[in-house]
């Protein structure tokens, strides 16, 4: 047997095939498990209410409170600039994707 002096062990083609198959099997199993484990990305939703003056000279944004709806007149508050009625102009949400 010829040995050129670098690595002193012999290996035959069946062993190589066997090792290769084992490695491939391990990889496919890991991939399978990983695929099943991918959890859906959690989403956090922040909802805001935009309050506006009927004369359009004032606008403010605050967190949504249950009971708010677009077009609702704010009962116990009036415009800091012109003392007119305030109403809810819009409600929109911001979706923030969170990685678990």
């Amino acid at each position: 047997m010829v040995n050129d002096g670098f690595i002193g062990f012999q290996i035959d083609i069946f062993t190589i095939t066997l090792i290769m198959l084992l490695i491939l099997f391990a990889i496919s199993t890991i991939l399978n498990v990983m695929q099943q484990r991918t959890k859906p990305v959690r989403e956090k939703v922040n909802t805001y209410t935009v309050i506006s003056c009927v004369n359009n000279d004032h606008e403010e944004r605050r967190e949504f409170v249950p009971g708010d709806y677009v077009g609702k007149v704010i009962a116990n508050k009036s415009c800091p600039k012109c003392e007119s009625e305030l109403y809810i102009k819009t409600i929109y949400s911001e979706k923030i994707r969170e990685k678990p």
Partner: protein
Amino acid sequence: MVELQFPQTPQAGTSTELFILFWIIINLIWFAMIFTDLFDRIRVSRWDRVIRSRLAQIEVMINEAKSNSEGYLKDLGINDPANVIRNFSSNFFLIEPVSIEPTDIIKRLGHLIRIRDERIRSFVDSILPSTVDKARRFNVAVVLEINWALNTVFRILRHLYLFGKKHNYWMLLMQLVMILPIIMKELEALKKAVDPFKLGIPIGDSAGPMVVSMFAPRDKRIPIVEETVYIEKEFEGRKIYLVKAEGPGGTVGRPGEAIEKLVESLNCDVSAIITVDAALKLEGEKSGEVAYGVGAAIGDPGPEKISIERTAAKCGVPLHAVVIKMSSEEAITHMTKEIYDGVAKAYDVVKDIITRSTKPGDKVIVAGIGNTVGVY
């Protein structure tokens, strides 16, 4: 260097035996590949595993939506919410009218949808205490319908899976594997839809009613047909009639019937009918984009749309359509800022259409189509 020792060399006795074994196995595999369906079976069993895990995920999703809804119903004073949802989920179905005889089909379908809506309303009324307001009653109905939809889709998927397995219908299993990720995304969106309806927050589909509401945020709403209102308003010398579902509860109302009645009461003296609705965007398009076209922008099963078209055709009124584009998920979940920007843009487009295509003194109908949850 690794030295390869090939079995042909005479000194490797064990290797020669191994080689023969190897060779036999390779040939067996080839034989199995060509003359048996062993590999198909292996593939099918892998699909089977994938489908089962996905169905389990869907079941988890349904249970999340259900427990979320149960909490809501409990807060509204229902004693046994789990039972209520179960009853509703398994007992409401609509048998579509005969379609091989098309005479009257729209009328029959409209009739059935109406009866169904009434049944749902009376069911909701029967379970809720009388202290709960109208808006919340509408929302409860939608929450129940979401649970019904999730359950129905799950039952159909489970049926297809079990049917495919029972009859060794591989094609069906393969199709399920392919389509399940898409269906799951839709169901995930449906699950998320419970939250906005619980709290009364506008969803993407509320874009149409929101545009109408911008014309008259606080004006008095006059009921015209069931769950639908209209508002009379002056706009740059024109008289505009705003039609929308009755807010701020979650309902779509009957805009088609309302427009028909309104045009009739105005003796066809209408210069334009403008419908504003949310529309599904194509993949690659931006959410909140506004498009303008001709026709009735409304996505109902048929009866409402046809009555808008018939009314417009009968009276020769131009039909304008303004749509705000969004994905199917955005349409049923919380309205995002991009879509709200689209709403503001659509409001300008509608104003532009009114000023450009009508004269002062004309009468114009603007209908905001869609679910009016969270919009008065």
